[in-house]
């Protein structure tokens, strides 16, 4: 059993508080992604769990045992660093076997476990090389091998893919997922890339400035973002988010444009409320070129001028001007469009989000 539980976990550097008392429960064998913009305290949190950083308050439990003051080696965790942190003076084989050597495992056992890890990650041909003789992707794989050789309770990853090029990153992402299916350990995976978080994790923890904004499955954080921040952070291209004022059954935007108030929010707002209206690009599309998710009555059509188009082959991102600003929409089964064309756009309001302009919290009942 390797649950991880953070209670009121706090980190201060001097007088500056970086992590503000976060609570999180990670189930056994769960893959959790900590995601958030750079500098929000993800690495610090991970390093506190690893024992590389002292904690300033709260408790950390691994497998039900409080580990607050234990050294990293007493926590039975492994960590894959962003920089890989391979030992340059050792061969790949020695890198993989290092933790076993320190633990005093017998030579036979060590050889067996190194061979096992090397087979899983396809490192057999590289065992006698040194890290400097490996490509980025190979180093990445050795770093993961070094982590699995120990058979730890918990894997910690700190942005393991951020030094790879885009193609390799996608490839390694799949590999990590496959690895997790195979070794079945609890994983805490830090990344600033929401796509990585969405594709890998069972649950996603979205952090911002040392606070947790939302914890949920990829589906939950995508479909029901708890805050304006989460709404803007998850999803690519990002959700259209624009401030508006509620006025008798309508949303009045700053530039004079207006949309009907989405039905789902009628009960939770009152006239005069300042809100932020959110609509994903998937729910804004040229008529007939998108997937309608709800009731046809909730689809509101407006004719808008096209500002820019970005063809991606299977779909085209259309930036249409509404209320003086560009709204990004996703056109499936694309037809040729050029800047200046006027198109009828469907606003699928059954999928819209409203957030309180002040607190940023979702107004969904």
């Amino acid at each position, binding site marked *: 059993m390797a649950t991880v539980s953070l209670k009121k976990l706090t980190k201060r550097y001097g007088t500056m508080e970086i992590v503000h008392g976060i609570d999180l429960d990670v189930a056994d064998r769960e893959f959790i992604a900590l995601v958030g913009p750079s500098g929000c305290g993800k690495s610090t949190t991970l390093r506190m769990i690893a024992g590389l950083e002292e904690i300033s308050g709260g408790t950390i439990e691994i497998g039900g045992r409080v580990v607050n003051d234990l*050294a*990293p*080696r007493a926590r039975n965790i492994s960590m894959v660093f962003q920089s890989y*942190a*391979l*030992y340059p003076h050792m061969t790949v084989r020695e890198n993989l076997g*290092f933790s076993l050597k320190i633990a005093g495992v017998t030579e036979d056992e060590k050889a067996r476990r190194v061979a096992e890890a090397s087979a899983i990650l396809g490192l057999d041909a590289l065992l006698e090389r040194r890290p400097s003789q490996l490509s980025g992707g190979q180093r990445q794989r050795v770093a993961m091998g*070094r982590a699995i050789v120990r058979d730890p309770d918990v894997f910690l990853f700190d942005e393991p893919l951020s030094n790879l090029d885009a193609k390799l990153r996608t490839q390694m992402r799949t590999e990590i997922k496959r690895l997790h299916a195979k070794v079945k350990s609890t994983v805490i995976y830090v990344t600033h890339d929401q796509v990585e978080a969405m594709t890998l994790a069972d649950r996603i923890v979205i952090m911002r400035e040392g606070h947790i904004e939302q914890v949920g499955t990829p589906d939950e954080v995508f479909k029901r973002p708890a805050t304006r921040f989460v709404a803007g952070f998850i999803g690519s291209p990002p959700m259209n988010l624009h401030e508006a004022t509620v006025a008798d059954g309508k949303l009045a935007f700053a530039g004079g444009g207006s949309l009907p108030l989405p039905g789902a929010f009628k009960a939770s707002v009152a006239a005069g409320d300042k809100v932020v209206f959110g609509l994903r690009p998937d729910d804004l599309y040229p008529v007939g070129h998108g997937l309608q998710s709800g009731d046809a009555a909730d689809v509101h059509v407006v004719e808008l001028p096209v500002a820019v188009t970005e063809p991606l082959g299977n779909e085209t991102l259309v930036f249409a001007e509404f209320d003086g600003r560009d709204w990004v929409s996703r056109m499936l089964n694309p037809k040729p469009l050029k800047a200046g064309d006027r198109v009828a756009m469907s606003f699928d309001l059954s999928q819209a989000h409203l957030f309180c302009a002040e607190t940023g919290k979702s107004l969904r009942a």
Partner: protein
Amino acid sequence: MDANTSARIKRRAARVAHGVGLFLAMLVICLPGLWIVLSSLRPTVEIMAKPPVWIPQQISLDAYVAMFSGVGKGGIPVFDYFRNSLIISVTSTVIAIAIGMAGGYAFARYRFRGKSGLFLGLMLTRTVPGIALSLPLFFVYAKLDIIDTHFGLILAYVALNVPFTIWLIDGFFRQVPRDLAEAAQIDGCTRWQAFWQVEFPLAGPGIASSGIFAFLTSWNEFALASQLTRSINSKTLPVGLLDYTAEFTIDWRGMCALAVVMIVPALVLTFIVQKHLVGGLTSGAVKG
């Protein structure tokens, strides 16, 4: 002549100029050494000749024979000097490296109050010329009764070398990424093991060069040694050179011979250690 040909000729010319330049530079660096070796092999008349005699006419090992043939027969106590030099240089180097490693590591890895002030202070100690210290040092040593002892010189040389070894070793530890020691700790090492298993081997070549540096400083030091030593108890080889000066004459040939005897072990040591200095050992630790 097309552009390619002229470019090729230019490149060749540059290569030749490069070679000639290097040769001249090496000549300037090596000539004094060669001249010392040469002077130790030729008679005084030839050394002092004006205009200089470039090509030696007579070569002999007389100076070396005399040097080793014992006091009274024109020799000097080379073995005593050599032993003193060796004991003092090796001991002071080992101590300076040990302190340098502890200090350099602390400067490279830890934050503490007054860090930059302390570092600057260490460097400032080196702005005082050694010779200016020799008189006060002489008085202090006289009071402590450690003049003409190995201990006295070792102490002085450790003090002389420590700022430099700390500074150099600090730089070498800085080049070892922090992540490595952390990874080692995750892999089951204690802080202490992580240092010896990972950080020390990676900074090792650098530490060895600092060692050579400290050794050569002690081995060649003259100003302080000439004040703080008196007899074969502690006189080092550089001080021994003075044995060749009499009231009215200087035995240049003998002096050069002793200089050669001094240089050879230093060269050998440097050669042995530098073979183990594999550069770029930390490459491949992080990123691509």
